[in-house]
């Protein structure tokens, strides 16, 4: 083997090692990311990818959200039905958030309150402006 072929072999070995290193790092990062998303999922939040922070993004050093999602229009109008008209749309074992104000009660099914665009429903119940959040 002459010295020129030897150099090429060394160069390719080094390049392969670097490529392998990068692949390992990427795999590691992907693994961590997945775990974080699994944690968020366990907390009942839909995993989401970071959007550009809004201009009014948090400045407070004491309160830093883990992720800032893009802005969504507030939900202020949505259909409601009476208990008798729900039919098969809800399963008895599904979770709901329930609230009573005065003589009025309303349930918010958690499976309909899930996901960044859904986690806040602006509502009015018995004349009171409320927000159901999850």
């Amino acid at each position, binding site marked *: 083997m002459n010295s020129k072929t030897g150099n090429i072999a060394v160069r390719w070995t080094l390049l392969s090692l670097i490529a392998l290193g990068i692949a390992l790092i990427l795999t590691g990062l992907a693994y961590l990311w997945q775990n974080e998303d699994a944690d968020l999922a366990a907390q009942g939040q839909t995993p989401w990818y970071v959007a550009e922070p809004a201009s009014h993004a948090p400045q407070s050093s004491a309160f830093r959200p883990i992720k800032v999602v893009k802005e969504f229009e507030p939900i202020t109008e949505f259909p409601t039905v009476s208990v008798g008209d729900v039919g098969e749309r809800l399963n*008895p*074992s599904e979770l709901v958030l329930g*609230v009573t104000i005065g003589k009025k009660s309303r349930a918010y*099914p958690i499976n*309909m309150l899930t996901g960044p665009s859904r986690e806040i429903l602006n509502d009015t119940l018995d004349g009171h402006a409320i927000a159901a959040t999850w």
Partner: protein
Amino acid sequence: MYDKETGSLWSHILGEAMSGKLKGTELKQVPSVMTTWGQWKESHPDSSVAMLDPTAKRFTTKYFRSLDHFVLGIAEGSDAAAWSLAKLDKNPVMHDTWQESPIVVLYDKDSFSPRMYGRMLDDKQLNFRFVDGRLEDTQTRSTWNLLTGRATGGPLKGKHLVAMPAIMSFKRAWQAFHEDSEYR
């Protein structure tokens, strides 16, 4: 959580604006309950239901695999206290005090629903217990609905307990937002 009007950033677990124009402002928390549709339907037959396209399927009773990961918590000012669902599962009636007022923390095992009520009624203090699956107060032996806080039978029939603004939370979220919370 932002408000559209001022762009202030709110913590939904604290109900307080953390930054922006409204920083330090607190929202009033409305007492609510996390329960199953089956239980809600039975105890609130006259209620309405928000009906949007579902965005998930996983939030059913199966979600409560590890009860010790969940607490029922209440907070006001710098005071905070939380009751573990695992403890409530073993002892579903816990008499306690919150900010010097007598309260009772109740738990319905079938629907994994914790509730907290004040237990003063017209200047009388009540104690509760389960008898054959029915919730009753020991003073008058009236029967109570755990979900609504309303007496459904006996001398106090029609009376209401005052629901406290306690929320169900992941224990570690509660710990993060209320570092000095008591655990009972």
